[in-house]
C-alpha cells in the first residue's frame, strides 16, 4: 500500500513555541494512526497541522508525496478533516448541510447518499431541523456525517467520540475501520481506549517526546496504567 501521509521533523505550536516534541510519522493507505496524549499535550494541534489548518513551526507534511497546501483543490479533494468546529449555516437544515457537501464533491446521486448518512448517524428524524434545534451530540453527528459522506484518501478525526453515546461510538469505530479497509488512511485523535483498539494499526503518544507504540500500549497509556 502506498504512503498517503508523511510528517518529517514536524514541530507544531503557537507564536513560535512548540507544544510537543518533533513528530515523525507516516500513514499508508488502509492504516489508522491513533494519536493519544494527556489534555494539552498538543494532539489537536498536531491534527490541525496535518490537516493544513495551522502552519507548522518547522518540518514537512506531505500528502501523496506533495507538500500540503490547504488552498489547493487536489488537497481539498483528498483530505477530509473533522474538528470540533461548531459552525453551521443557521438557516440550513441538517439534510441541506449534507446535500451541500455531497453536491460540492460531485457525488453521484447525492440525495441517496445523504439519506444513507442520515440513517447511519440516526439523524433521519431531525433531517429538517436547523442546527440551533439540535442537541450537542446531534451536531457532532452532523459534522461526522459531513466528513464521511464525501470521498477522501485521508481522513483526519479529532476526538470524534466526544459527545457521542456508546452505541454511536461503536458504529463510528466500525465506520472508521471500513474506511481503512476500503483503502483510506485515517489519523484518529482520541481519548477512548476502545475506539483506539478497534481501529488503530499504530499509535503515537504525544508528549514532550513523541513516541510510537502499538495500539494496546496506547490504550494502556490512555487508561493511565
Amino acid at each position, binding site marked *: 500500500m502506498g504512503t498517503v501521509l508523511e510528517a518529517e521533523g514536524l514541530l507544531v505550536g503557537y507564536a513560535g513555541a512548540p507544544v510537543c516534541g518533533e513528530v515523525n510519522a507516516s500513514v499508508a493507505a488502509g492504516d489508522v494512526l491513533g494519536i493519544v496524549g494527556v489534555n494539552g499535550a498538543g494532539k489537536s494541534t498536531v491534527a490541525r497541522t496535518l490537516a493544513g489548518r495551522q502552519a507548522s513551526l518547522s518540518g514537512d507534511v506531505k500528502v501523496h508525496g506533495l507538500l500540503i497546501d*490547504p488552498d489547493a483543490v487536489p488537497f481539498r479533494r483528498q483530505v477530509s478533516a473533522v474538528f470540533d468546529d461548531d459552525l453551521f*449555516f443557521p438557516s440550513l437544515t441538517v439534510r441541506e448541510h449534507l446535500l451541500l457537501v455531497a453536491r460540492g464533491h460531485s457525488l453521484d446521486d447525492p440525495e441517496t447518499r445523504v439519506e444513507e448518512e442520515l440513517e447511519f448517524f440516526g439523524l433521519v428524524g431531525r433531517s429538517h431541523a436547523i442546527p440551533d434545534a439540535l442537541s450537542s451530540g446531534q451536531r457532532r453527528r452532523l459534522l461526522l456525517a*459531513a466528513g464521511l459522506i464525501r470521498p477522501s484518501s485521508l481522513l483526519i478525526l479529532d476526538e470524534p467520540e466526544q459527545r457521542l453515546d456508546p452505541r454511536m461510538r461503536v458504529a463510528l469505530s466500525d465506520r472508521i475501520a471500513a474506511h481503512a479497509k476500503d483503502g483510506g488512511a485515517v489519523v484518529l485523535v482520541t481519548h477512548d481506549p476502545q475506539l483506539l483498539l478497534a481501529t488503530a494499526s499504530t499509535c503515537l503518544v504525544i508528549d514532550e517526546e513523541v513516541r510510537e507504540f502499538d495500539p494496546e500500549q496506547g490504550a494502556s497509556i490512555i487508561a493511565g496504567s
Partner: protein
Amino acid sequence: MLNRESLAQSSELAADVVRFTRRSARRYKRSRTSWGDRFVDAYSWGLGIGVSLTMAASFVLALRTEIAGRASTGSIIGEQWLLLPEPVLWTSVTFAVLLVISNLARKLGPMTVSGAESTWWLSLPVDRRPMVLPPFFRKVALTAGGSAIIYLPFSLVTAVDRTAVDHILASLTFAGAGTVAVLLSAMQQLGWWSRRTAKITTTAALLACAVLPALSWSLWPPALVAAAAVGLLALVARRAGRVRGEELVRGGAVAGHAGASLFMMDANEVLRALGSGRQRVDGGRAARFYARPTRGPLRALIRADAVAFLRLNPPLAPSILWLAACMAILLVEGGLPEFAQLAVIVIAGCAAASGMGTVARKTALVPELDALLPLHPALVRTSRTLMPCLAMALWMTALSGLLVLLGAADPLLMAVGALAGVGMGAGTLRAATRTPPDWTAPPVETPFGPVPRAQLGSLLRGLDVTILATIPLLVALYLGYVPWSVLLVQAVFSAGIFLVVVLSRPKRT
C-alpha cells in the same frame, strides 16, 4: 493545477453550491418573516435614513454659510508663521480618509467568508471565486456609494465657489478613489506585492487619487479613477480564488465581530475587533523593568499595568498625526472659524485618548482577574488609569506647547493642557468599562418626547468626562490668555474626574 475546462466546471459547481445555500437560507427566512414585519422594517429604515439625511443636510448647509462668511471671524492663534494653502489641507484630509478606507478594508478582509462558510464551503474541492466574489463586489459597490455620499457635504463645505455639477463630479471622483483603495487592499490580500512594496504602492496610488477630486471641473478625473478601478477590479476578480483560506477566515472573523458590535453600537467591542488583527505584541518590551523586584501588590500592579501599556498600545503615529491635524487646521490659509478650530482640537483629543485605552479595554473583559488581587477596587482602577493619564498629559502638553508657539495664549497654557490630559486619560478607563447599551430598556418621557436615556448614557460614558476635561482649556484658548482662575478650575475639573473615575465601580451586565 486545474486546466481551463475543469476550472470552469469547478467554478460552475461552486456557483451551484452558493446558489443552493442562499436559496435554502432565503426560503427559511421567508417562512419566518411576515409581510407586516418586512413593511415595519422598511418603514423604520426609511424614516431613520430620511431624518438622518435631513439633519446632516441642515448642518452642512449651516456650516457652508458660516465658512462662506468667515472673513469676519477670528482665529484662536495670534500669528500664522506658516501659511498652509487651503487646497493642500483639503487634499491632505482626502488622502487621510483614503488611507483610513484602505486600512479598514485590509482589516476587514476585504475578501471574506463567514464562520459557517469557512467550515462548509472552503473544504470543497471547487474554485472559490463564486464564493468570494459576490460579497466582495457588494463591499466595493457599498464603498463607492458611501464614498460619494460622504464626499458631497465635504465638497460643499470646502469648495463654496463650485457649481452643483462640479460637486457631483468631485463626489464621483472620490467614489472611484475609495473603490481603488479597497481594490488595492484586495491586491495586498492576494499577496500580489511584498509588505513593503504594498505600502509604498498603496500610499503613492492613494496620494494621486487624493489630488483628483480637487480638480473636478472636467470629466477626466472621474474617468481616470473609474478606468483605474475597473482595471484593478478585473485583475482582482481573476485571481480572487487564490486568496488563502486563512486570510478569508481572518477577515470574516474581524468583519463579523466589528459588524455585530457596530450594530449594537458598542464602541469598545468595535475597537477590540479592529485591534484583533494586530500581528505582534512586543512581549520583550520593558521585560527588565518588569523583572525588577518590587514590594506590595499595588506597586506590582502599577508595574504590570505600565508594562502592559507599553506592550499593547498602538504605535505613536496616530497620536502624532492627530497633533499634525490640529496644526494644519490652525495654519490653513484664510483660517477656519474659531468654533471649528476648537472642535477639531476636541475631536483630536478624544481620538488620541481613545487610542490610549487598549489595556483598559482588554482588562475590562476579565474583571475577575482584578478581583483576585488583595487590593481595593479603587486602587486597581487608579493603577490602570496612571499610564493613560501620563500619556495624555504628555500629548496635551505637546499640543498646548505648539499652540503657545503660535501665539494662542501665554506659556501657562501648557500647565492647563497637562492637567486637562490627566482628566482625559481618566476618561479612557471610564469608556473602557462602560456596559454595552441595553436596547431593551424603554425610553424616558421628557417634555421633548421620549429619550433613550439609558442607551445614551451608555454610549456617552467616558466621552462625557473626556470632553468635560477639555472645557477650561478651550475657554483659555477662546480668551487668548490663561487667567489663574482657569488653571485652578482645570485642576479641580481634572482631579474631580480622576476621583469620579477611580471611585465609581462600573456596572456589570
